[in-house]
């Protein structure tokens, strides 16, 4: 087990290294660069710009900049934001919770709803419900998340007036109910695509489990349908879904970015867009790394959980 964890950690670190390289290359080689905004202001002379470049260490060769940045990254110094001089880790940390809350809630919704739909579709395979859900899933996968958010705001905030149109809480309120009222709509919007994906995979997974011998044995033993379903089918169908949850992480994170923008949710997605607008390279770079780390950690946890649950999987 330990060996497996260590080797997976090693692989993840190598991936992170490649990720950092890609991210750094994208941001460094792109035209413009962090100095472009200084170059735009009319009072700036070339010498002043050069001086700023030297201060920021941008006059050195790219690969030295990269290794320097990487060295600091490893020891936990992710640089300082160009915008307000705060440390990047602090800035990201203060936005992390909002994003995780949104993603977590959306995942809970999509897992519950998606698995239920998937199991029911599989049990009633070929029926009207199954067919309707196939079409629903494909349409749901085709709706732009942000647009679905706009429509939700239009219906539930502007027309019906049931839910607030944005932000995480009302200033001066901040009760649990208030948080929940702000959370429910963005979480549902973010969950839509995932419900579609989960229901599809859960359907396939359930169909595979239903065919297995142990299900026939359970039925032959004379167990009630309900007991067979709950004890033998649902649990076993859910195991491959854990891996899927890990693989879905980048998509949920990307969806969160767009959803946060529509609902003015103060998470990493909004921070990313704001930082792009300010050419705040250290924060953008930090967010790219942080999101990749989240994804890799998520995948690692998913694989370990599967290994713990499923004794058929041998780790060495």
């Amino acid at each position: 087990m330990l060996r497996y964890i260590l080797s997976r950690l090693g692989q993840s670190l190598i991936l992170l290294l490649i990720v950092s390289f890609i991210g750094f290359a994208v941001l460094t080689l792109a035209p413009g660069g962090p100095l472009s905004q200084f170059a735009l202001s009319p009072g700036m002379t070339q010498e002043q710009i050069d001086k700023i470049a030297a201060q920021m260490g941008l006059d050195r060769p790219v690969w030295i900049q990269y290794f320097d940045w990487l060295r600091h990254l490893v020891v936990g110094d992710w640089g300082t934001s160009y915008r307000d001089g705060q440390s990047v880790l602090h800035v990201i940390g203060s936005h992390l919770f909002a994003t995780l809350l949104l993603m977590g809630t959306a995942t809970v919704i999509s897992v519950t709803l998606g698995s239920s739909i998937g199991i029911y579709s599989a049990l009633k395979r070929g029926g009207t419900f199954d067919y309707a859900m196939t079409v629903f899933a494909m349409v749901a996968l085709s709706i732009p998340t942000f647009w679905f958010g706009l429509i939700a705001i239009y219906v539930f905030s502007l027309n019906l007036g049931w839910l607030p149109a944005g932000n995480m809480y009302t200033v001066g309120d901040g009760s649990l109910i208030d948080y929940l009222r702000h959370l429910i709509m963005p979480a549902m919007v973010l969950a839509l695509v995932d419900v579609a994906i989960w229901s599809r995979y859960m359907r396939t997974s359930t169909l595979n489990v239903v065919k297995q011998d142990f299900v026939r044995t359970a039925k032959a033993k004379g167990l009630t349908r309900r007991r067979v379903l709950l004890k033998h089918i649902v649990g076993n169908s859910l195991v491959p879904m854990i891996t899927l949850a890990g693989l879905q992480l980048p998509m949920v994170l990307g969806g969160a970015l767009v959803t946060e923008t529509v609902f003015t949710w103060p998470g990493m997605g909004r921070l990313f867009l704001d930082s792009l607008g300010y050419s705040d390279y250290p924060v953008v770079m930090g967010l790219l790394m942080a999101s990749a780390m989240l994804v890799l950690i998520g995948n690692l946890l998913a694989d370990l959980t599967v290994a713990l649950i499923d004794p058929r999987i041998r780790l060495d």
Partner: protein
Amino acid sequence: MTTLATNTKQPFIKSRALRRFLSHRLALIGLVMVLSLTAACFIGPYLLPYDELHIDLLARFAPPGTGGHIFGTDPLGRDIAARLFHAGQISMAVGFAVMVIATCIGSVVGVVSGYYGGKVSAVLMRIVDAFLSFPSVFLLLALAAFIQPGPVMIALIISATSWMEVARIVEAEVKSLRNQDFVQAAHMLGMSNRWIMFRELLPNAIGPIIVAATLTVARAILLEAYISFLGYGIQPPLPSWGNMLNGAQQYLASAPWLAIVPGVTITIAVAGFNFIGDGLRDAFDSRSDHQ
């Protein structure tokens, strides 16, 4: 419908895959959706009384159906239908360009990795994994923020974040084929590696590649909409389905059609390609007989 095809001695449509595709109801609906949308985008502009750049400040925010504006007008009084169709030409062109570029990159990476295996494969597939561990919207925005955002550049950067799936599919397929007899035979005949990879191995993966390519069009149209909505994609006055939605949020209460019309159009286009892709998958994969 199926009895007609099976009763005749010689089936009218010879290819089994094509027959299976045509008996897939959803795929046909998708095909109709895509074709009619394409027709609307390329013929529609000639039938409308306004062109997409005509600004009429007196006709701002005209609701759909008034003054000859079937989908209403935008904050500058431009005809939304005209803009929608022009935007469709651009958005779909971007979608197809991404399909071609991403499929080519993915196929080459996949076939090289699957054929040579070993270290080459390890390196290439780790790069694929690395690209997959970014949320693609993050990477896309980071790229888009620093380039001149014309349709060509947008197509290129979306391709840069969309080739990985094809690469994985092709790699898996080629890996499973490279020890087969026909490949050994090609080796013995003295064929070059390049010939074996692209003439012997790649054509065997054509089914999954076509499926992935179709789904890539859908994905590209969605991604273009995302980044244009966020203001980093195709820039006005050039319309795209995504940038027509940029700014729709602030007029949501007074002019909801600004959001509804392009959004529904995007959904139809993307769903159309997804339906076709699903039908193709069933058509090529004889195992998934309407599971």
